[in-house]
């Protein structure tokens, strides 16, 4: 028999579940326009989201618990976004990636929803047009912190990730 005595770690079940959830967020990539390209970079080898246990981009809402809305959401598209959100199992988190998703961005027009928080609860807003992939990583880490703190999704206090510039 192997000796497990120095491998055992004692924790509360609650903490264990939080730890597991935090490090296995599976994103549902809701890539609608140009921001989606940055989201792909975020999953790619250079920025490598798999360091955070989120490498499994599942194109199926039933296997995802983090929706990254990346792109310009029109009124016509909003119903699809909501439907996919509804199909994700609880607890589910939402990152609004980019200016368009968060506020309509430069599209002050009849066709574009001026912020997806008008129809789904958002946890983290990432600024930029498009945001850098590392900023999106920061958004993901904020979600992880929220999970670690035991918060529920869609709470009042939102997290806003500012734009960073690299020369």
């Amino acid at each position, binding site marked *: 028999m192997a000796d497990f005595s120095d491998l055992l770690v004692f924790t509360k079940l609650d903490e264990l579940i939080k730890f597991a959830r935090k490090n296995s967020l599976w994103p549902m990539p809701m890539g609608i326009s140009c921001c989606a390209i940055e989201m792909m970079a975020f999953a790619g080898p250079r920025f490598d989201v798999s360091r955070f246990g989120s490498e499994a981009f599942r194109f199926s809402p039933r296997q995802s618990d983090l929706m990254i809305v990346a792109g310009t959401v029109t009124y016509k598209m*909003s119903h699809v976004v909501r439907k996919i959100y509804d199909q994700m199992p609880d607890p589910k988190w939402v990152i609004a990636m980019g200016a368009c998703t968060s506020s309509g961005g430069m599209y*002050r027009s*009849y066709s574009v929803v001026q912020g997806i928080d008008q129809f*789904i*609860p958002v946890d983290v807003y990432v600024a930029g047009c498009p945001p850098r992939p590392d900023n999106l990583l920061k958004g993901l880490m904020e979600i992880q912190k929220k999970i670690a703190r035991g918060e529920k999704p869609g709470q009042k206090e939102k997290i806003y990730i500012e734009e960073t510039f690299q020369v």
Partner: protein
Amino acid sequence: MNQRIVEKLQSHFADSIVSVNEFREELTIVIKKNDIVKVCQFLRDDDELKFDSLRDVCGADYYRPEGRFEVVYNLYSLKNKFRMRLKVRVEEENVHVPSVTCVWQSADWAEREAYDMFGIIFDNHPDLRRIYMPEGFEYHPLRKEFPLMGIPGSLPLPRKN
């Protein structure tokens, strides 16, 4: 080439031409609305001109009392590598225009776009539905009187929770 096109059209359709305009070597011919199919057919089939490609059909709203809308046809001849532009004027009270889908298949979606955005109705179009806006939307967003930010409540959002 411009000269040749105008000559040919004038000899065949003298009555259908409203105006001919040349600006910086671009040719624009305004045609009477009901003759558009005829003229298009001729331009496509004529062996010398061969305008075999319809590059775009678009609407325009000038917001004037007469001939408020225009439908613009951008033609291209692969044989001559040459472009020209046809226009028809459309009155606000009668927004019907004959469809040119029977001449060029490519008119299908382009005309749907003009219908969606300006409310111009293309008669004999095989499938005149909205293309950008949702089915059941009642306005035409590129008309000048439509507010840029839209009409509140005209496009429903999903429920919030």
